[in-house]
């Protein structure tokens, strides 16, 4: 049986460097997916991924024994991302426009993409159109399959706020997502 996150964290606090490596690998894919969905940009997601684990490393002594690790980790990531959004709102930005969206996979040619109305692209656009806080709540609850209390802990807000944000996000998506049967 694999050790729990909390056990690994405790081991790392006691000097076991490999425990931290196990934690990073365990959460690399879901956390990267969370950040990528949140930012919509690979380079930014990579930066935040790196910063998140750097922050975890620098604050490992603040981690309280027995506290659930996952909400703590995602809380740090969400906090960094929120700071970045706030920071970027009034700044000129310079980013790479990836020709292959890592979430969407390989793209068709530009002409085909313009004509095909790719369902994935529409879903992605609908999610991207949400305000950052609603988007973060949606991704945590829906894609990361957190409970509402866990999401509230991650985002540093009340349970009621998380439910409200989730409700608003889904109401918006209900209007913006395409009709029809998913094939």
């Amino acid at each position, binding site marked *: 049986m694999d050790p729990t996150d909390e056990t690994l964290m405790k081991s790392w606090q006691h000097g076991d460097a490999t425990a931290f490596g196990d934690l990073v690998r365990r959460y690399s894919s879901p956390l*990267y*997916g969370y950040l990528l969905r949140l*930012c919509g940009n690979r380079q930014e997601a990579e930066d935040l991924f790196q910063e998140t*684990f750097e922050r975890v*490393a620098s604050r490992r002594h603040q981690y309280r024994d027995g506290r659930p690790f996952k909400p703590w980790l995602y809380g740090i990531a969400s906090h960094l991302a929120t700071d970045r959004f706030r920071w970027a709102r*009034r700044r000129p930005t310079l980013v790479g426009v990836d020709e292959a969206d890592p979430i969407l996979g390989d793209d068709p040619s530009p002409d085909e993409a313009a004509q095909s109305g790719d369902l994935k692209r529409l879903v*992605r656009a609908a999610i991207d159109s949400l305000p950052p806080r609603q988007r973060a709540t949606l991704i945590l609850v829906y894609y990361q399959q957190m409970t509402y209390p866990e999401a509230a802990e991650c985002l540093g807000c009340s349970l009621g706020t998380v439910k409200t944000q989730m409700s608003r996000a889904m109401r918006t998506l209900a209007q913006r*997502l*395409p*009709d029809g049967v998913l094939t």
Partner: protein
Amino acid sequence: MTSQHLSQDRLVDYQIGVLDEPLRLATDAHLAECEACRERLADLRLRLAHLELLREDPTPPEPLVAAAIAAASRPRRALRILPLLVGAAAAALVLALVLRQFLAPASAPPPPAYGISPDAKPPFAPASNIELNVLPRRDDVQLTIYNAADLTLVRETRQLTMKQGWNWLQFMWANTLIDPTSLELLPQDGEGRVEVRQLVYPPRLPGVGRWLMYSHVSGQVPFNVTYFTSGLRWNAVYFATLSQDESHLQLDGHVRVTNGSGEEYDNAQVRLVVGEVRLKEQIAQLAQRQPAYGSPLDSVPVSRRPPVSDWPYALFIDGHVEDYRDHDRQKAFPREILKEGLSEYFLYTIEGRDTIPDGWGKRLPSFSVADIPVRNLYKHDPDRWGDATMRFLYFANDSDHNLGQTPLPEGQTRIFRRVDQPAPDHLTYEGRADLKYIPVDDKVELELGPAKKVSVERLLMDQRSENYRFDRGGNIAGWDEVKSWKLTLGNRRGLPVRLESTFNIGTPHWQIETASINPVKHDASHLRWTLDVSPQSETIITCTLRTYHGINAENR
């Protein structure tokens, strides 16, 4: 069957499980009875099921995970590790590809001249329109702020991760005062491994520009991004402290930088330019124009283009007009603003680096020079200042006055005086003056405003006319006027003052009959007395002037 159907919002909240218990039970009960609402709920579920299309989590690059793990041992340096590791991975990938396809040594430098592959067709547009509201870190930034115009040249260095082939880079300047027509991107690898092909302003996307580049390599490439912005200003502030006898001055210069550009510049090298730059249009106006270049003129023959004065963006430099559209736009943007005249240009570089948040100002010390010999002069000239007597300070921006190292930028000066009352080494406020731009070896004049304790009173004591001459009809054709004046120059200060009184005679035809103190002829119709007046005393000047009128003036 219930008459009132459930709202869409209620159905959404029911679906995601955020309804409280009574509402959930009521919704359950309604759905059990209402087929229409059940169908709507089913439709809603189908619609929301599209979210599953993005369910799968992507796998992060292995170098990224390795760098994150390395953060545990070197948390403070982790951010520097990532580019190295990613760069190493990219280099390894390139190496493998090159070895496999061309059997060429991967460590060998790239060919000296890279050409675009004939098979590499430029893409029409970026393949994905993902939201782009983030930015990679800015490694370095240099601000060159001009005080003569609302103009700042920003030069940034950024490390960008390129992939082999076509790359798009997007620049967004919403809510800032950046001039989009001035954007320039230059790869700094020095070997031509990255070629910047074009800068596109996409339609219906205000505040967005995209560069199309072809990269021959994968990995990180340093870039310089250069642009003009508005809203960053600097001005000089001076504090002048007179000695107790007002014979010397200590001058402290400061520079105040204010950032209202909408952009925050961290750890920036700040350079300040004193010089004259004439802009045809203000950067702030260009920053708000959409599209960036206005209506394209490129399709209009040169002979039919509007005159230069109507061009949207041009710099007047030494009498020449630079219009960027006449050149390749990627190359045309000058590396730095040229000055209008070499002698009128000076560059201050603030030592170290500063962070200037948006909306903030910062004052930095510039210089401090003591024991500057200074000349005090009070001036009375009713033509210019009415009855007031104005106070002036004079010195020069030269080595005789312990200055002359640099021009003095335009700025506001506050003048104080050191006094011994009520206690030793106290200061009194003497006034405020605007200092104009002073080149090296030029004179400085500070106007401190009206002086209350130094005055000039002018009284007409006697007046008569004589020497009448008549024409053939018996009408007066010429005459003389003789006026006697009394000027009282008063000094109620505790220090001697030098006072200059200018007297307007009103005609160029005059003669001094008598004068207790001889004046100097200032110009054709003005006399001037310059006197030292002792403390707490008055100096009285009497003067009789004869003026000639009509044919008496013509015959002189």
